[in-house]
Structure formats: C-alpha cells, structure tokens
C-alpha cells in the first residue's frame, strides 16, 4: 500500500520543538556575547567566557555586522519576544496582563495578534509544535512508558477536562483582584524560557523550576500529560481559540481497521478511533504517524465528524472471519 506523506509531519514537529528549545538555550549565550561585545571587555574575560565569546562570534559573524545592535532582533522567549524583528507574545500573557492591569494596552495586544490568528486556523498548534515545555513533557511521557513497561506503577487516571478552563478563569480573576501576573508563575513555557535564561545568563535557577518539577511529578503520578490536559491555563485558552479551527485531523472510515493504535499514542487522551478529537487536539499528528492504514488525514473543516461507526476494514475483516467460521461449520453439512 502506498503511504501518504502526512505520516512524516510528526518528525517535522519534533524538529520544530527541538529548534525552539535549542533557540531558548542559544539566546542567553548570544546575550552574553552581546554584553561582552558592548563592554569591549574581551581581554578581561575568563577562559570559559572567552570560549562563549569565540563560539558565538563564529556563529553570528556571517549574519550580523554589528552584534551589539543587530542581535537585538532575536530576543526573549515564547512568552514574549522578538523573532527577527517581529514582536510576538503569548495570548495568555495578554489575557493575564489585561486582567491584572484592568486596561487594554493596544501595542501589547497587537503582538499577540499573529499567534491568535494562527490558533484560530490551526487550533492548539502552539502546544504541539512550539511550546518548549512540550518537548520535556513528551520525553517525560516516553520515560513514563518505559517505567510502565518495567513494571512500575505509572498512574493514568482520568480527570475532568474542564478543570483547565476553571484554572484559566480563576487565574484571570485572581490577576484582576491582586493585580499581579499569576499566569507567569504557573505557565510551563514561560517558566522554562525564564529558567533557561536565568540558569545561563544570570547564574542559578529561580523558584519556577520547583513548580515545573512538581508538574513532571504530577504527570508521572496522577495522569499522562496531566498538566497540559487538565491544568494548563494557556492550553485552555488555546483550546477555546481553536475550537472552530479550519485544519482538523479526521478519520476515513473506509480505511480504518479499528486497531486503536491512535488512541494509545494520543498523549492528550483523545479518541481518534471514534472520531473524538474536539478542541483539545493540538494537531500533533502522532496518530497520523502511527496509523497503519493511513485512515487519519488532515482535512479542512469547521467541525469534527460525528462518530462514523466502526472502521470498514474492521467490518470487512469481521465479515470474512464470520464467513470463514460459517464455512467451517457448514462444510461438513454440505459434504454429507
């Protein structure tokens, strides 16, 4: 059978996640290089600082003429930052900041416009493709699978998905009452970006890393990808925005053989086998990659299909099986 190209998208996604994560590690080094350059302090640097300086100089020399000003085009984290001169912010930052300040600051709102537009079309794509915490969470989930295989009790409870909307609403209200950005303290991508920066450029982690380790423990001991699925306020916001997304994964019922590999591989606990995607799906394409009959594909549609019934390949298989059994039963009769 000729396989479609769509099953390779998942590899592309891992590349994307890795690039974002490596960028977050690289940016503090670029910042250090920029600082040393601005201070004209090469001769005063320690040997390891000189190593950073030389490496970054070699890396950036083809692209920048004046590192002190040109490198400002690439700054920040996925929480808020500058990507090649384009200012981008997380929509959750805008929601939280508007609530905390009780005002709408338009220049800041505009920086979140592109992420919001992308989310409206592609759904919760940030969670699957960009979020630096996702990379760690997915690797962590693979570790959990190994532990499970080794016989350790890795819990996979089911909680109520609506919990995260509650967290979003409660966070917004607390922000409005207390006047502080509470989301910044509990939102893993913001924490990861910040902590990487602290660890490399400032020296030593901040308090956020403790919270992040707690979320890892939550994933391991309570439920699979539990924080993303049940708690993350950013995930809740992206889910709401991506509810009527254009690009959806859908099941071709004629090719599906009801093997349920998609349900097993889906870290968000969705139900592709019974057309249950919903607004939680982050278009990560893991189910497309794992489907042995290419029954899952991207389609342009505003709504998910209702349950289309069991896969027809399974029907076919079951019918043949039944026929075979019927033949086996009826054969002696015919012979007689």
């Amino acid at each position, binding site marked *: 059978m000729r396989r479609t190209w769509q099953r390779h998208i998942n590899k592309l996604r891992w590349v994307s996640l890795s690039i974002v994560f490596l960028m977050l590690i690289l*940016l*503090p080094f670029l*910042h250090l290089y*920029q*600082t040393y350059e*601005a*201070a004209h302090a090469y001769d005063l640097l320690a040997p390891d600082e000189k190593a950073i300086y030389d490496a970054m100089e070699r890396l950036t020399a083809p692209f920048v003429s004046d590192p*002190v000003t040109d490198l*400002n085009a690439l*700054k*920040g*984290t996925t*929480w*808020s*930052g*500058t990507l090649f001169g384009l*200012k981008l*912010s997380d929509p959750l*930052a805008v929601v*939280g*900041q508007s609530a*905390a*300040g*009780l*005002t709408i*600051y338009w*220049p*800041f709102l505009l*920086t979140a416009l592109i992420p919001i537009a992308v989310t409206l079309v592609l759904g919760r794509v940030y969670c699957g493709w960009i979020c630096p915490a996702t990379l760690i969470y997915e690797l962590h989930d693979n570790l959990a699978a190994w532990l499970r295989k080794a016989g350790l009790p890795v819990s996979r409870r089911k909680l109520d998905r609506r919990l995260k909307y509650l967290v979003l609403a409660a966070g917004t209200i607390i*922000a409005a009452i*207390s*006047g*502080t*950005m509470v989301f*910044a*303290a509990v939102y893993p991508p*913001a924490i990861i*970006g*910040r902590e990487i*920066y*602290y660890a490399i*450029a*400032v020296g030593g982690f*901040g*308090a*956020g890393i403790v919270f992040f380790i707690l979320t890892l423990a939550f994933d391991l001991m309570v439920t699979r990808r539990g924080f993303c699925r049940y708690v993350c306020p950013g995930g809740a916001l992206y889910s709401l925005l991506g509810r009527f997304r254009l690009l959806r994964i859908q099941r071709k019922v004629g090719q599906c053989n009801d093997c349920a590999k998609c349900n097993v591989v889906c870290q968000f606990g969705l139900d592709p086998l019974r057309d249950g995607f919903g607004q939680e799906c982050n278009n990560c394409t893991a189910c497309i990659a794992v489907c042995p009959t290419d029954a899952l594909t991207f389609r342009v549609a505003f709504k998910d299909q209702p349950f289309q019934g069991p896969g027809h390949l399974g029907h076919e298989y079951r019918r043949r099986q039944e026929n075979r059994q019927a033949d086996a039963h009826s054969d002696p009769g015919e012979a007689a």
Partner: protein
Amino acid sequence: MKRRTFMQKLAFFAGVAGFSALPFGLARLLAPEVKADPHRRVPLPGSLPDPDAFRGACIGCGLCGEICPVKAVKFHRNDGAGGVNTPYINPEDRACILCGLCMEVCPTEALTETPIREVDMGTAQIDRVACYPWVDAGVCGACVGICPLGSSAIDFEFGNFYRPVVQKGCVGCGLCVEVCPEPSLPIRIVDRSQGTVAHHGIGVRRKIELR
C-alpha cells in the same frame, strides 16, 4: 639646643598636631559606616510610577534583562511576594547607562518610552566629608566627566574647578558611583527626599559651608 629643650619642643608640637587632628579622628570614629546597600531595589527607567500598577503590567518575560547591554537589570527571583520575576535595578551595584533599550523592548506598558531626562531612579548624593575635592581641595572630577546628562545633572561648584555639586536634573543612573575612585563611597544614589548633600562625619561639619 640642649637635648632636654629639644625633647620638650618635640612633645609640644606633637601635642599640637595630635590635638588638631583630634576632630578628624573623632569624625572618623563617630562617622556612620557608609556602604552601598546591596538590597536596594529601584524600578527600571520608564517604569510605571505606581509599584502596584507596575506589578500588574509586567508579565515577567525577562526581555529587559536580556537586552540590557551592561546587565544592570536584575530580577526578583526567590524572594517570594507578588513581584516574582519582575525586574529591578541597583544603580550603586551596576549602573544604568540610560540607553533606553529596556523601554523599547518591553512588550507591555510596564516600561514606557521616556526621555532620559525624565527618568527617575533617585538622585546622586555627595558626602562632602569623604569626597577628595570637598575635603582637601584635591583634584578629581571623575563623576562630572562621566555623567551622561552633563551639567544639568552634576556640575562643579561655582568658582571651584573640582568640587562636584549634584543638580536637579540628576536621574540616579549610578555611573558616577561606578567611576568614583574613593573607596568610602562619597557619592551614592539615594531617594530624592534625602537630598543631594550629605555629611557623614561630625567634627568637620563646621568647616564646610552649607548651601
């Protein structure tokens, strides 16, 4: 001259010298120890004047610290309270160069672009008992030389080339503190309410004309 009279005169002059140095010695003994406060936390240039409003507007993205060319911007990290991950500056520890990049890069209204003359991080304060030119007409002028705001912020006293006087235009960037060669910190950054002149010694106070 006999040895006896020589010894007497020597004792006399030693007594005079010791007695006249007494005020300085007393001043140094009684003077409060002056050190830069490592816990001083000043809001960044261009930040919202109300600290609560600033905390509400800051999203803790860390861009101001990342873009700062001199790494003067630091962050509240492990110290709890509502302002975790919000930036601060300690101009006495690491001076702000008033480049304005943090105001430019801030995505929210926490830091808004402000002309550098309207920035408020406090004001410089000169201890006239510790500053060389004020104490003994020494030759310095480093603080006046480095000030990015020129004579509107710090200038020499009228008719005297090397006695620095802080003016009203000082925004408290702290570059003068960094450049000051005297180890006992004659120039410091303080709140505006504390004034621009200090006399941390006691015995010498009368010798200095107050403004």
